[in-house]
């Protein structure tokens, strides 16, 4: 029987990791990710798991060690945030190119500078082209579920691509909510055992991992990585369906909220979607056909689903919790590009909000809807919510 616990998002993720019981976990603290590795270390100390912990001296070494471990054939995890992810950056690409199904929760936090420990999505966007699967979680329950889903997905033979689960710093990682925890056995059976084909520790069939790949093959290997992500896109609905069977919770590429007849649509990632849903409800009570699209899957980017969700709507406002300096905001530019193929192009607008953990209030999220309803959107005008000007 699943049990409901009142726990933080960090604890929820740590419980998922406990139930997955990976062979190896590398750990390095960074606010607001720290409680994940702390909870997990306690599980190890208490014998709740028999994972080998590698408490490294930096995130660079955390990512390096998980590459070594996953290449060796072990199911391997680590977790980080912001500057930790930035320090890992070089090896994040290498992990993907070596096709290692590492699973890594990212507790989204503003990337310095200036230094700030609160949440935004600049870290996740910074690695968007590294070749990892990127899932986003609105709350603790989703963070828990996505950790388990990511493990299964990343390890599928046709996928073999590392996966990140993004959850918002403090809001999700430190906020206490009711989280339904599945039975240990159910999770264990769901993720099964990972049997890598070419583990480093297969000494009878020695393999060279991470060779020098010059112009004669590098291109082809990138093409294969692309295939891995295409396959992830194909496999996701299956894995979601399997997960629904054990949990009763239904996931998809996009979380569509009151979208059936929606005319004014907001697109936003993660925890701000909860506030946005509340705002959508308020507008609906006033008879305004508002709706929300929250991508659960960011990479592989579900372009087709986005297009079919947004084609023909009156207006679409995209909220980004990060800037792309000198360019359009990251999510906005992707949504805009998806809409190129729309039959009936909606009006669109770009809004940047919540940087460095700035509060996101319902009244703030009313603004983009109001401007959309008034027909005041300008696709070339980046607007800011809650900015002191």
């Amino acid at each position, binding site marked *: 029987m699943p049990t409901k616990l009142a726990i933080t998002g960090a604890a929820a993720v740590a419980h998922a990791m406990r139930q997955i019981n990976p062979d*190896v976990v*590398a750990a390095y603290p960074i606010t607001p990710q720290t409680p994940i590795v702390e909870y997990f270390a306690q599980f190890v100390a208490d014998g709740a798991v028999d994972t080998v912990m590698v408490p490294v001296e930096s995130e660079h070494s955390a990512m390096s*060690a998980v590459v070594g471990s996953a290449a*060796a054939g072990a199911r391997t995890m680590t977790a980080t945030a912001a500057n930790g992810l930035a320090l890992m950056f070089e090896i994040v690409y290498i992990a993907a190119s070596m096709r290692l199904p590492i699973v890594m929760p990212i507790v989204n936090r503003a990337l310095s500078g200036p230094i700030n420990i609160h949440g935004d999505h600049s870290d996740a966007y910074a690695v968007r082209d590294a070749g990892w699967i990127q899932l986003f979680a609105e709350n603790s329950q989703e963070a828990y579920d996505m950790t388990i889903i990511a493990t299964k997905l990343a390890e599928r033979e046709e996928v073999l691509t590392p996966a990140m689960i993004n959850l918002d710093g403090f809001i999700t990682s430190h906020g206490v909510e009711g989280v339904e925890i599945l039975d240990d056995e159910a999770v264990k059976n769901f993720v099964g055992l990972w049997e890598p084909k070419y583990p480093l520790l297969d000494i009878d069939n020695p393999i*060279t991992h*991470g060779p*020098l790949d010059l112009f004669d093959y590098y291109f082809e290997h990138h093409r294969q990585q692309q295939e891995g992500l295409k396959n992830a896109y194909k496999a996701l609905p299956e894995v979601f369906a399997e997960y629904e069977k054990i949990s009763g919770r239904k996931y998809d590429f996009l979380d569509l909220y009151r979208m059936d007849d929606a005319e004014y649509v907001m697109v936003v990632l993660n925890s701000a979607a909860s506030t946005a849903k509340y705002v959508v409800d308020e507008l609906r009570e006033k008879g305004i056909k508002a709706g929300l699209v929250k991508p659960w899957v960011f990479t592989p980017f579900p372009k087709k689903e986005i297009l079919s969700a947004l084609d023909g709507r009156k207006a679409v406002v995209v909220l980004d919790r990060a800037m792309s300096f000198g360019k359009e905001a990251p999510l906005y530019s992707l949504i805009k590009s998806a809409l190129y193929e729309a039959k009936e192009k909606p009006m669109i607008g770009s809004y940047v909000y919540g940087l460095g953990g700035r509060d996101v209030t319902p009244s703030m999220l009313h603004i983009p809807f109001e401007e959309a309803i008034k027909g005041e959107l300008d696709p070339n005008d980046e607007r800011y919510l809650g900015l002191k000007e």
Partner: protein
Amino acid sequence: MPVNMKQLINLVDKEDWPFTQGHRLCPGCNAPMVAKWATMTAKALGYEPVVGAATGCLEVSTTIYPFTAWNIPYIHNAFENVAATISGAEAAYRSLKNRGRLKTDKPIKFIAFGGDGGTYDIGLQSLSGAIERGHDFLYILYDNEGYMNTGNQRSGSTPPGADATTEPIGKVKTGKVMFKKNIVEIIGAHENVYAATASTSDPFDFMAKVEKGLKHEGPAFIAVLAPCVRFWRIPESDGPAITKLAVETKYWPLYEIDRGVYKITRKPRNFKPIEEYIRSIGRFRKALQHPEYMEMIEEMQKYVDTRWERLLKFEEATKDMYLR
């Protein structure tokens, strides 16, 4: 019983080379000797070596996809992280073994290779971390005293006066003036470690140390002076002869620090002046034209003499005083 010639010959007879010919390191390069001797020693002792390498000449020249010179499991990750990479693999080994999921029950030993750049400089943090955590692995530094793969730039190991492209000798500067970082002392200071120097002039001393390192439960480190024939500007055949001179001039003393206990493993009967070593290597040629460089040589002589005296005293003072 240290590894002997017979064990090695058996291995050669079987043609079971862990590190094979066909790599693309320069003819005469001393790095492949280090790799070959170390992995052969491990094999001869009945271990299954699993190897990691840092980015550098040894790595780029031995694993050009789709070819490989490694007949044993091998992993390259990046420049500065071979120690962290190997510590992950070693952790995986412990975990999988513990869970009964390993396909073999043969004894696996982890060996990491790094150049001086990847060890003294950019990789020092990851190496220090891995040693402090006590992973069971042997790290072998092939020290050619510069970033050779990228074209002879200075490293923390480049000696004063050696020609290096990022600290060149010019009209007003005599190139690098700093002495080499003393990597063995840095590693030895971790205390939980077996640390040693070796040289390509003395394969059996090296192999004995490899054996000690492999048998040491926990981290071990060997720094091998391994000339780059290309940028040292020496004849292809001269690497080992030159490292012999390095030992005889006290430039590269052969010793070990086993958990705090010092032992000099070669005590040359007659020492030669360091100038003889410097004059035999082409990369000092330019510096030797600068009159100030003679003062530097004098300083170096003083330094190596003092270090030798200290080593003798350390050996005496630390006898049987294992720190861990």
